[in-house]
């Protein structure tokens, strides 16, 4: 289907298609790779962020613990019923901005024994620091978390977060350190407590540099939400209650992991917005809280998509730049081809001098153009040679034609040859083969009473045969005119031809001299086919064999003579082997039998008619096969004196 599209567009389409596929693969691969990289980066960043946040929280906790620990130590050393702790507390509170309140809560028993008037407490009220007395409020603080835990465990502890303030909207957590006497069995004196507002924690989490819809939350050590963007969760919900409500087994499992103090980075669907993303969770060591940060996938996907879009845009730009470049390249390749094509068409019309496109460089098309030019030049030379050859052949053929015309001119062709003679009839035909052959016949009357008839066949064909034939005919006529008998004439002819016959040519000749008044025929044979005699009564036979051989081969050849007597009505038929050896397409020869049969059948015809009949019979036998040899026949009919 591509074969009908021009090379230019094929090149164009294929290269662009390939470029497009490569582009798509690169972008696809880039997308996957970028996503993976961004995921890794996200995880690393998440850990960094989470660790930093946890560290900040730990730092605050440590600062709080330090203050509380220091205060507890001071109180233990200076503990005395009358000591006024307010100034110290106020100073500490002022110095420690993370704290919202500090107090010393005496054990009620100890207070009564020691006669201690107040359990001093200070807290911030706007920018001011207010004093109060825990004992005075009437509330029984010994049942609170912050008191009971260190009292019973006898070690510092963090309370669970709790709501405080008038509307219960202020969240607080308290770190309390037990106070112990140096001596005595009943050594527990009370508790030093530091209140920390969780407002700063909320602010810290809110201020985290998170993507849109990303959020951080904090769980207490039993899974209660301490900080969460959903304010209504805080202290009211815990992760397990959420899991129950949503029947979310994954969340339940996650909650257990978190409470156990594990950390991790997992794929997670936000329980707030159902968004997909990742959740990082890690414990904060001292308080046993759990920090969780949710990273929405969309933000990252958006980043990846943005990256891919940029890549695609760059790719498309490259693609668009490639278009004209490809068009130019394709055109630069096909333009010379089109030029060559045009030139070839002009060349095909025979205009070899039409200008060919000149192409610079050594590339394939230029080489093709070179070959083309070379071909054109060769063609020119070849054509010139062909013209020369044709002219030469024309000349040779015309010379051969002339040779044949001369050859044909050497044999008598006027019939009847002796119109005044009533005592005999004579006819001869010579049908030359395509090439110049070497057949000959001749007849003449050296005097009124004698008729000489000769037929011959020179070996081979062409100009040598024609020349040899001409020489033979001329010499033979000369010898017979000189009064030689047929045998003598052939002997002389042989000797003359045999001299200097380097080409080994030879001629077979049958020579017959008729004494017309008597009908006596003297004849001699130089290796030729024996003529037939058709008697007036219908008998047909070959003339008897006489000694002799082809002429021109060997000097001193003996040629014998013989004679027969013709009765009125007898016919002598002389022929060359072109008759008997005429072949059909199957390679069958015409042969003696067909020839004598035809002669016998047509013997009533005149000499002219007889030869015509034999010619037709030979042609019918050949049945379209090419005539390979000259066909020559002479018919002589003797009538006697009339």
């Amino acid at each position, binding site marked *: 289907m591509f074969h009908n599209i021009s090379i230019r567009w094929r090149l164009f389409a294929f290269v662009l298609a390939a470029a497009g596929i490569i582009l798509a693969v690169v972008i696809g691969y880039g997308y996957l790779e970028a996503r993976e990289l961004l995921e890794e980066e996200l995880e690393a960043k998440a850990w960094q962020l989470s660790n930093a946040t946890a560290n900040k929280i730990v730092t605050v906790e440590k600062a709080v613990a330090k203050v509380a620990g220091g205060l507890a130590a001071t109180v233990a050393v200076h503990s005395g019923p009358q000591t006024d702790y307010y100034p110290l507390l106020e100073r500490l509170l002022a110095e420690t901005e993370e704290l919202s309140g500090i107090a010393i809560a005496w054990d009620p028993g100890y207070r009564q024994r020691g006669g201690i008037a107040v359990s001093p407490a200070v807290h911030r009220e706007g920018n001011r620091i207010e004093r109060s007395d825990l004992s005075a409020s009437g509330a029984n603080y010994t049942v609170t978390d912050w008191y009971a835990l260190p009292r019973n465990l006898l070690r510092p502890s963090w309370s669970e977060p709790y709501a405080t303030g008038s509307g219960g909207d202020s969240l607080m957590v308290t770190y309390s350190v037990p106070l112990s006497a140096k001596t005595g069995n009943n050594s527990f004196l009370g508790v030093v407590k530091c209140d920390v507002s969780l407002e700063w924690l909320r602010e810290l989490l809110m201020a985290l540099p998170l993507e849109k819809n990303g959020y951080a939350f904090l769980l207490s050590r039993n899974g209660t939400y301490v900080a969460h963007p959903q304010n209504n969760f805080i202290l009211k919900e815990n992760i397990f209650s959420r899991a129950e409500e949503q029947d979310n087994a994954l969340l339940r499992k996650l909650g257990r992991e978190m409470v156990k103090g594990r950390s991790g980075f997992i794929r997670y669907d936000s329980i707030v917005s159902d968004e997909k993303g990742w959740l990082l969770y890690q414990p904060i060591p001292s308080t046993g809280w759990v920090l969780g940060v949710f990273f929405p996938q969309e933000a990252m996907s958006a980043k990846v998509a943005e990256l891919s879009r940029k890549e695609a845009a760059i790719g498309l730009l490259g693609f668009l730049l490639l278009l004209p470049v490809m068009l130019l390249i394709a055109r630069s390749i096909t333009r010379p081809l089109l030029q060559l094509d045009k030139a070839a068409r002009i060349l095909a019309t025979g205009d070899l001098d039409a200008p060919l496109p000149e192409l610079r460089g050594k590339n394939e098309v230029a080489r093709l153009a070179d070959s083309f030019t070379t071909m054109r030049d060769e063609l020119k030379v070849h054509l010139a040679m062909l013209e020369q050859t044709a002219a030469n052949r024309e000349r040779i053929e015309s010379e051969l034609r002339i040779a044949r015309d001369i050859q044909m001119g050497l044999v008598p062709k006027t019939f009847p040859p002796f119109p005044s003679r009533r005592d005999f009839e004579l006819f001869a035909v010579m049908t030359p083969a395509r090439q110049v052959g070497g057949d000959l016949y001749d007849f003449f009357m050296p005097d009124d009473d004698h008729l000489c008839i000769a037929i011959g*066949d*020179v*070996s*081979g*064909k062409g100009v040598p045969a024609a020349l040899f034939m001409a020489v033979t005919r001329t010499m033979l006529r000369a010898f017979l005119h000189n009064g030689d008998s047929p045998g003598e004439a052939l002997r002389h002819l042989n000797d003359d031809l045999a001299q200097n016959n380097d*080409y*080994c*040519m*030879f001629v*077979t000749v049958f020579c017959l001299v008729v004494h017309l008044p008597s009908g006596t025929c003297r004849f001699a044979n*130089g*290796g*030729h*086919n*024996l003529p037939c005699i058709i008697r007036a009564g219908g008998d047909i036979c070959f003339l008897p064999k006489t*000694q*002799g*051989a*082809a002429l021109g*081969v*060997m000097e001193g*050849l003996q040629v014998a003579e013989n004679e027969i007597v013709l009765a009125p009505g007898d016919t002598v038929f002389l022929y060359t*082997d072109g008759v008997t*050896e005429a072949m059909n397409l199957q390679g069958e*020869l015409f042969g003696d039998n067909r020839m004598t049969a035809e002669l016998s059948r047509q013997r009533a015809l005149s000499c002219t008619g007889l030869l015509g009949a034999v010619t037709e019979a030979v042609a019918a036998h050949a049945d379209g096969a090419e005539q*390979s*040899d000259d066909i020559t026949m002479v018919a002589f009919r003797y009538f006697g004196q009339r």
Partner: protein
Amino acid sequence: MKIASYHEKGFLVIKVEGRMDIATSPEFEKNCAALTEQGNQNVVLDFSDLEYISSAGLRSILAIAKKLKSTGGSLSLCALTGLVKEVFDLSGFDNFLPIYTDAEHALAGDGK
């Protein structure tokens, strides 16, 4: 036309098969010339499988005979059959070349 040759009793016997006419005789002449130029001076042509010979073929044989004679060699023919025998009879070529009935006689040089 097919040409095969072998040596026997100091003779080179060339067996010719097929037709020897104006078309094939130049090839025959060339092949014989090549064979005789290797120093084979006494040659016997075995015509037992030759179907036809024209005057051009006779001329070739004459040319070879003449060449061999000029260098002191000889050429004889043997085993002529049918048409070929007729042609030789008619043309009187038996006057010019020794013709034997078969290769055995040709090699022995008798029994013409």
